[in-house]
């Protein structure tokens, strides 16, 4: 191998106290496809942003074709020949295919668009992807997701990039479209373009990439030829040592089934999920980003439409209810983004706790503030929230205490089926344990908990059973004793049988 196309050595990047990258080495050869692999939070996105010019490294060496490379912004990264295709598409949906491909690069003649030339250039870029037949005049919004992705890649190709960085390009593609994308990638490879391929799907990486680098906790922990590594080795490199951080399960006799999903599917996600949940049980849902964990909970709570299948709540089947209807049935939901869609940050603790059930704190439609305060004080004590009092605004509380308020609202509502999405996201370690203890207490009281999380030690630590989702489908549902971190990862990331370790 002569000079590397892109070389990173000892790259470090922190955000405040969190160290996202603690020393990453990475080498990309000309004309190779290199898979970048790692769990959620391993540092992949930070690395992508540094290479794409959105962030800068705090320390370490970054070189492009042997010359120092420190782009000031995405545009200058593009000028140097690095094109990034982000996970979220950045197309202008109302403009046509050819307009999108050459957006910001329009061939011009006296300020007018040189239409013929534009069409030629767009056609040429799409031809590199085997898409010469695409209708260039069609507005992008009318295209399917896979075709939109092709438009996005074609746009990157117009600049004749030396390296193409693809972040989870297949997360919204069907299997057939994924194969088409791979064909396009191999064409690019033959044309001498280097590709960094970031994906959770190990089987895909094995299929498309020549080499791999594994990130874990902000470090590059393994790198080598794809053909010389087994699936199991990759999984072990991603997961590291199994950590038994919070194994403190209590024994609870399982009660009757109160919540049952029968092959439910939503608009795009989930595709097919069946499960049943008993009183006193904590059931975890694992899965990679985009597997449909959040979407499943949203469909259960009626936030997204149920397109197929049915649900049973406390013995009654239905084909979807509104969130209001679910609350009436005693189903409560805490969103993963509690600040955006959970709490009224400007309002007080008491207002937030009693929001969904104000009747006991009011008379003839008027709020009885002292009754509201009494109710709130009770929950503040029971959940041991550190707040100055029921009238303190929620914004002033710490993340952990905010989360307790969000859960407390469900308790005030007397919900006994709790759908919790990432209940410890953005919460410091000490508070996490308090949330875990709270969830246990709720289960002991006979409530049923369905908990989605991307943090595997958390699921392994507090759940009685864990179900794994992959590409919108629930693929495995077993007691927690049958799982460990590697097995969960394999089930979540693998294409075939999750037990095919070698």
């Amino acid at each position, binding site marked *: 191998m002569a000079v590397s196309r892109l070389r990173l050595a000892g790259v470090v990047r922190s955000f405040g106290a969190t160290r996202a990258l603690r020393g990453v080495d990475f080498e990309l050869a000309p004309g190779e496809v290199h898979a970048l692999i790692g769990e959620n939070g391993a540092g992949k996105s930070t690395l992508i942003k540094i290479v794409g010019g959105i962030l800068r490294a705090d320390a370490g060496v970054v070189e492009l074709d042997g010359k120092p490379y420190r782009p000031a912004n995405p*545009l200058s990264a593009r000028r140097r020949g690095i094109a990034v295709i982000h996970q979220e598409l950045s197309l*202008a949906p*109302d403009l046509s295919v050819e307009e999108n491909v050459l*957006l910001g690069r329009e061939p011009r003649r006296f300020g007018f*668009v040189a239409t013929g030339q534009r069409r030629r250039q767009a056609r040429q870029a799409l031809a590199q992807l085997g898409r010469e037949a695409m209708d260039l005049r069609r507005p992008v919004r009318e295209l399917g997701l896979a075709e939109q992705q092709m438009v996005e890649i074609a746009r990157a190709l117009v600049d004749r990039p030396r390296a193409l960085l693809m972040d989870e390009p297949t997360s919204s593609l069907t299997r057939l479209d994924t194969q088409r994308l791979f064909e396009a990638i191999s064409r690019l490879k033959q044309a001498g373009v280097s590709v960094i391929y970031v994906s959770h799907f190990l089987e895909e990486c094995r299929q498309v990439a020549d080499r791999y680098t594994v990130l874990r906790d902000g470090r590059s922990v393994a790198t080598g030829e794809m053909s010389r590594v087994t699936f199991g080795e990759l999984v072990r490199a991603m997961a590291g040592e199994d950590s038994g951080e919070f194994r403190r399960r209590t024994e609870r006799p399982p009660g009757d089934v109160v919540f049952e999903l029968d092959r439910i599917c939503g608009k795009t996600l989930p595709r097919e999920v069946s499960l049943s949940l008993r009183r006193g049980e904590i059931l975890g849902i694992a899965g990679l980003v985009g597997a449909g964990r959040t979407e499943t909970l949203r469909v259960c709570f009626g936030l997204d439409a149920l397109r197929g299948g049915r649900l049973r709540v406390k013995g009654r089947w239905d084909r979807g209810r509104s969130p209001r209807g679910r609350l009436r049935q005693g189903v409560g939901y805490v969103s993963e983004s509690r600040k955006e869609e959970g709490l009224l940050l400007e309002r007080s603790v008491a207002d937030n706790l009693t929001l969904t059930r104000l009747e006991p704190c009011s008379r003839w439609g008027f709020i009885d503030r002292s009754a509201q305060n009494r109710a709130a004080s009770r929950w503040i004590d029971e959940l041991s929230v550190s707040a100055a009092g029921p009238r303190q605004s929620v914004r002033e509380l710490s993340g952990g205490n905010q989360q307790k308020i969000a859960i407390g609202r469900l308790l005030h509502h007397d919900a006994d089926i709790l759908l919790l999405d990432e209940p410890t996201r953005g919460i410091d370690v000490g508070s996490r344990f308090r949330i875990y203890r709270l969830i246990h207490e709720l289960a002991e009281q006979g409530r049923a908990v369905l908990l989605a999380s991307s943090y595997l030690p958390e699921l392994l630590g507090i759940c009685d059973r864990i179900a794994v989702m992959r590409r919108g489908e629930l693929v495995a549902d077993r007691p927690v004793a049958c799982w460990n971190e590697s097995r969960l990862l394999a089930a979540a990331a693998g294409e075939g049988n999750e037990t095919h370790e070698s």
Partner: protein
Amino acid sequence: MKAERRWRSWRPAAGPLFGLAAVLALFAVDPELRAIFFSGSNAKLVLTQTVIVAVGALGMTLVIVSGGIDLSAGSVVALTGVVAASLLVAAVPPVLVVILTLAAGALIGFVNGSIIAWGRMIPFIVTLGMMGVARGLAKWLGNNQTVNPADNSLNLLMEPRQPLQFFPLPPGVWLAAGLAAAMAVVMSRTIFGRQVFAIGSNEEAARLCGIPVRRRKIAIYALAGLFFGMSGLLQYSRLTQGDPTVAFGLELEIIAAVVIGGASLNGGSGSIVGSVIGALIMAVLKSGSGQLNWPTYMQEIVIGAVIVLAVGLDRLREWRTGR
């Protein structure tokens, strides 16, 4: 393929065109009304009345397609009308009056655009503020009363001359038609025009593709201001005086024309042809209901309902075509 392409470039205007036909048909039912309504003199009147809204709608289309809104349009029309009248009173030659008046409109738009682009403030608030400022300036400049210049060539812009026949049309109508044609080309064929669509469709994507979003926004609002200035000149010519209290609420009429013409307030879609037709629909409705001797309140109710109906039908069409 060819036919489909032609259809595609016309499709955005198809809805409004159909709406215009429907409104015209409505007034053609009664034979008595038909005779009056479809006479040359009435058609001329309708066109003359459309012009002020239509020219404003050219600028507003630009703004709305880019994902913005300009609430100061009505006030700017009043202000530039007073500016034109005051300059004429000061015996400035008409050619210079036109240039200075347009410059005044563009300046207001430039200020709007700069605050929106650099101050990262939302267009609704900025232009709401400018609506008050420009109206105040107009009253200040006019000393709280109308400004009446002596007879001059600018008064001819909107003069009907022979009111009983269709031709000759006032020069203002030809001017508006010419500007509309030019803007239609700008929006669909120039790089600037397509960038306006890109910004309105997905601002982040536009920035990522290296489009200077801030500078474009300033240009968009300044150009819109220029059109409102043009509208102000025509308004002056119609009244032959500068009235600081005129065109109150005109901005909403202009926005309605653009929206009836198929533009989305979310940005990214809209067309000049559609907006002009939108302005025509409203003028026809007003004129027709006037001929029918409907009371003003009835006209207001009908026009209000038409706005909602037009946008509702558009939604329905979009939904039916799978989006």
